[in-house]
């Protein structure tokens, strides 16, 4: 057991920190214009790619460096620590492609995914198929050498800006629902694709819905065999990002420092109650960090991502939401009168953490399964 970097990890971290310090675009987090922010994130993807920081844990034959996922974790951590722009998310799409794609598809799709030339979104959920993904209704009907897709997707994060979509659609309505789904790699520029941003309660556009009207997809852009879509989705979901993979932990620490600062500004640091609440928030963050390190260690040791991820997801939601509650308690009316409107927005942004990517209730179901409790 060792929580410290190995010498190689330490060297990597040092180099990375130096590179980040020199490379993070100044003032990127002050950009208000959304399109400009998107462009910046794309540029940052390419910059990271050129420096060798994208897909480090991918197999070498697919353009990766074959490194341990620890290096991805260090990248996440230091990006958070040094306040870098959000990291591109290539892992789960890449995983789906290099596990299920044909050789030709891999050659076509993996390099631009890695390099950032093409950005991706995930067309899984639907209005009537949220937690119950297998009930999806979007249909792909075979018509000669094309599939014709009709339906509606929801919670397609990044749908507004993505070039490509990993789409799930029903290709066979006559078999049990898990068996009639196929996966597709589709360009978002095809005629018939309409994207509408979804604004969440904070007032910010966080995700999107995508309408598919007679969208034609060449057969060779189906991923895997017909009916293999559910398996592909489950693989993808298992590699979806947990708190450790999105710099959440580093961000949490920075937010906690800000909340401590709020308490100081308001002269509340003398109140034992406030001191304890701040310390409690620190403990929550540490507990989550350490739990994620254990899970990462299991991944490094070759265990496939398992239901343990549900523990981290529950701790994550609790930590994030509790911290926003604490900020609200410290800010009091200021959060409601517009004086601290940014914190109200952060509060509402913290709510879906216990909904998206499997609600807190679903995570507890998964843990009950893991505990082998009766169905």
């Amino acid at each position, binding site marked *: 057991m060792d929580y410290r970097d190995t010498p190689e990890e330490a060297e990597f971290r040092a180099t990375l920190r130096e590179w980040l310090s020199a490379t993070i675009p100044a003032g990127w987090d002050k950009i208000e214009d959304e399109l400009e922010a998107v462009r910046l994130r794309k540029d940052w993807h390419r910059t990271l790619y050129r420096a060798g920081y994208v897909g480090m844990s991918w197999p070498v034959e697919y353009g990766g460096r074959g490194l341990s996922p620890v290096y991805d974790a260090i990248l996440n951590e230091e990006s958070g620590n040094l306040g870098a722009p959000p990291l591109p998310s290539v892992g789960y799409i890449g995983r789906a492609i290099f596990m299920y794609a044909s050789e030709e598809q891999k050659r076509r799709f993996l390099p631009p995914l890695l390099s950032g030339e093409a950005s991706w979104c995930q067309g899984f959920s639907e209005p009537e198929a*949220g937690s119950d993904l297998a*009930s999806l209704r979007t249909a792909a009907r075979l018509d000669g050498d094309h599939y014709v897709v009709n339906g509606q997707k929801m919670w397609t994060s990044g749908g507004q800006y993505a070039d490509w979509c990993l789409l799930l659609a029903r290709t066979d309505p006559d078999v049990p629902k898990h068996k009639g789904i196929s996966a597709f790699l589709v360009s978002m520029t095809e005629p018939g694709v309409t994207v509408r941003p979804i604004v969440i*309660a904070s*007032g910010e556009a966080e995700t999107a819905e995508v309408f598919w009207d007679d969208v034609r997809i060449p057969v060779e852009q189906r991923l895997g065999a017909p009916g293999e879509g559910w398996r592909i989705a489950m693989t993808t979901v298992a590699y979806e990002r947990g708190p450790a993979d999105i710099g959440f932990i580093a961000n949490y620490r920075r937010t906690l420092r800000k909340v401590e600062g709020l308490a100081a500004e308001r002269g509340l640091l003398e109140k034992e109650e406030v001191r304890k609440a701040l310390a409690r928030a620190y403990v929550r963050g540490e507990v989550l960090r350490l739990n994620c390190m254990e899970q990462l260690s299991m991944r490094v040791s070759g265990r496939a991502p398992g239901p343990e991820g549900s523990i981290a997801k529950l701790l994550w939601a609790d930590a994030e939401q509790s911290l926003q509650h604490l900020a609200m308690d410290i800010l*009091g*009316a200021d959060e*409601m*009168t*517009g004086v601290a409107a940014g914190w*109200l927005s952060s509060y509402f942004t913290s709510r879906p953490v216990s909904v998206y990517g499997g609600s807190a209730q679903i995570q507890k179901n998964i843990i009950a399964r893991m505990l082998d409790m009766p169905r």
Partner: protein
Amino acid sequence: MLALLSDEQQMLKEVAAQIAGSAGPSNPSDLNTVDRAAAWRSLAQAGLLALRTRDDDGRPVGSGVEVAVVAEALGAGLVPVPYLGSAVLATELLALAGAHDEAEALSEGDARTTVLLDRHLSALAVLPGEQVYAWDADGAADALALTAGPDGHQVVRVSLDTGFVPATGADLTRTLLRSDGPIDEARLTPVGRPLSAEALLRWEALALTVISADIVGVMRAAVARAVAYTKERVQYGVLIGSFQAVQHLCAEAYVQAEASASATNYAAWAVDELDVAEALMAARTAKTQAALVAREVTETVMQVFGGIGQTYEHIAHVHTRRALTDRQVLGDEGVQLPRIADVRLTGE
């Protein structure tokens, strides 16, 4: 002892609910189109704006219970009219100051006046002072505050025409204005006679109670909406309301909302029936309970609605925003609990 609404109060509740139903939004965009003026006229015509004016014997036309019944109904409907600000908080202040004509004027529904709160929204503003807010100020030409004088506090009127800017408050159903600086003494017009300390505490008891009633209405309606949704929404081939986890989330939220209602009903009765210290204790108890659970209840409702409950288009967060703001008005549990403790631990 009979802790139930009388038949007349039950009828009042239905009248208020009907008005609320016609003026309440089903989703946030309705807030742009709903006919606020018509709702206000209906309230005036039904006599509901006159409840805290005084009759010929100097008694309130409507008791605390009746005002709370109306407040709860309007809270449940998320109705964007300044009933609390104008018809309760301002009217009661005018009546207590003996400014009965001014109170009557508000009850007719043409003029609206609200109150100024301090920058924490936690107390009626005492002027001159620093920044203040006009809360629940939709259509209000002016707002009431206090000045401190040798004979007690004096109610003063401040025009909202100048010196105030719209604040982007969390609550989408009430208008909030922020003073753009300290209020000049020249802008204060005294109204009525100075208030006794007791009158002011009585006002506070009423104010805390009706805000609690508003929260109760918001919570009950939010829970009812969530429960109704669980009877429509299908996942995994069944209605989500058949999942025990969803049932228990709803049951817990329901219990907390009902518990708040019990505390608020008593506080509403106490306003006019108990001595002022007891009435205030009951009001603080009700506000504490409502404030303590409002966040969790409305968050649970958003959770039960799942993905769509997180979106701006959906009504869920409108409940949350109104409840979170109400919590602060005249002080949340963090303000009330120490005062309850003062009474319990040193006052007796």
